[in-house]
């Protein structure tokens, strides 16, 4: 029976399936010109062309359960855009994204926090933003507060917090919403060494329990630490997909700028 179950897991639907994903942005939307720019254009005959930037040009890959996929690539390669589409922030221009499970994006420092509200109120608000009900939050409130290590400040307004405290609280909330897919976009760099280690341990445990992780990082050591697979995205396409060590080696030998400059 157990073997059967394991086999079933092997053939189950992928957690994320991305098929021929394209995304382009209109850079200067001429339809939203100001009155000034409109007046300046009166003499000119040629209408300014819509500048379209193709950020993703046909990305396809599947992510299975328990996979921890690191995404590397130079700035502007389309990594964050891709993650944003998975998090349902952007709509694809063409292609499709299929997601099986609850997605929890790790909110960047303070983006979901209101400075005037207390830590506790912000925990509630952020957890609800990620789809928890009030009862579910009450159940795991202690865990969140303990994990963030800010118990004595939890009744204080967030504006009195240090950036490290806010980042810890943010991670604590996102990692306790029992999502099946965790999205991390370069936000682990904040926080002290111990806390980053704690986060990595947490991510590893999450993965062992069957969670799926998609993360962008410029730190090759953290990729080698926790990733089971690595995607190299370059100019909107997947240039390489495979074992983290090999991909990073190839990426670093190809990229003209060293990774330290990018981070």
């Amino acid at each position, binding site marked *: 029976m157990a073997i059967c179950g394991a086999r079933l897991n092997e053939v189950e639907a992928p957690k994320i399936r991305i098929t021929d994903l394209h995304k382009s942005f209109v850079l200067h939307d001429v339809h939203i010109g100001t009155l000034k720019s409109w007046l300046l254009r009166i003499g000119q005959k040629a209408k300014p062309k819509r500048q379209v930037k193709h950020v993703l040009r046909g990305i396809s890959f599947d992510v299975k359960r328990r996979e921890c996929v690191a995404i590397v690539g130079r700035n502007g390669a389309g990594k964050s855009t891709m993650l944003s589409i998975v998090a349902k922030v952007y709509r694809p221009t063409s292609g499709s994204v299929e*997601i099986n499970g609850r997605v929890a994006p790790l909110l960047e420092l303070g983006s979901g926090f209101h400075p005037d509200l207390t830590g506790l109120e912000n925990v509630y608000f952020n957890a609800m933003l990620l789809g928890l009900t009030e009862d*579910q939050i009450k159940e795991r409130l202690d865990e969140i507060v303990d994990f963030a290590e800010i118990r004595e400040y939890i009744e204080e307004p967030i504006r009195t917090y240090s950036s490290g405290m806010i980042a810890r609280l943010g991670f604590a909330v996102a990692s306790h919403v029992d999502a099946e897919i965790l999205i991390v976009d370069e936000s682990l760099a904040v926080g002290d060494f111990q806390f980053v280690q704690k986060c990595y341990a947490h991510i590893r445990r999450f993965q062992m329990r069957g969670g799926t992780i998609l993360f962008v990082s410029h730190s090759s050591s953290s990729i080698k630490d926790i990733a089971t697979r690595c995607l190299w995205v370059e100019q909107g396409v997947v240039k390489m997909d495979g074992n983290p060590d090999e991909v990073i080696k190839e990426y670093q030998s190809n990229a003209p700028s060293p990774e330290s400059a990018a981070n």
Partner: protein
Amino acid sequence: MLIPTVSALLTPEGYDDAEVIVKSIQNASDRGPSMLEELKELWNYRALLMSMVRRELNIRYKNSVLGFLWSFINPLVTVVVMTFVFKTIMRNDTPNFSAYVLAGYLPFTFFQMGLMDSAQSIIGALPLIRKVYFPREILPLSLVIANFVHLLLAMGMFFLYLAFIYITNPAESPFRMTAMYLPFLLILNFCLVTGFSLLISALNVFYEDVKYLVGIITYLLFFMCPVMYFSEKIYYSLGAKGYYLYFLNPVATMVNAYRKILLAPQPQITKEGFDKLGHKIPDMVQAAVPLSMREMLLTSAISLFILWYGYRVFNKLKWRFVERV
């Protein structure tokens, strides 16, 4: 249910009872979800909406000593000033004039504040909506609901005020049976403000002129609504046709309706005085004009249309909010 441990929290399997397979497919080729599906999605996020409303109510007076009382002080001061101006300077002798001002001013403030607040709601939350998905309409909606809560509280105060009037003058009860239509009117008013708020908040992302326009229009609307005067004045100075045109404005109809159902009809008395040539003119009584069913039906239709249209425009634009550079 067992108290979950940290590791169990992380596991999808740790919650057999709460296991929900969330399956979502984003496909560029389809025409987007229908309005019914959008509403279903909004319903799924009702807890977030309610928490946003609570947050809004909490933040507003967070660092003030008087807190919630400010919600009442503002209209109170306005009403006192207006009553003073009209009673002593313009010599309007309507009994309980302050109650009439209040009955019109409260819904008008809801309209004004609801729109002013929600105009900035999406722009202000751009950093957040760039990071995480949730139905975007929650942002303007939470502000409209928060303002609606203020309206309800203020309406409670209004009835207390009527009770106070009754105590000081028990001969005549200021309470009216027609006040039972109030919930219906409140719902209609809510629909109208929500529709406008969805429209305005979405357009303001792309054209920030919208919020300035809203400021000017609501300022003008104040004079185009029967708050400081009685709608009868319009009837007797512009005639039936002008009166009809005047009430094509749904906000004016609503403000008027609040007054008509909450308070006794008030014949207008122009005090005796002198005309331009110095001849004495006697008191002139102008009979009260009742609320017409036709106006109300038209306003209901307009409100519901604006709600539907606002939501449609919002849904069309909402995916482009984050792409606005």
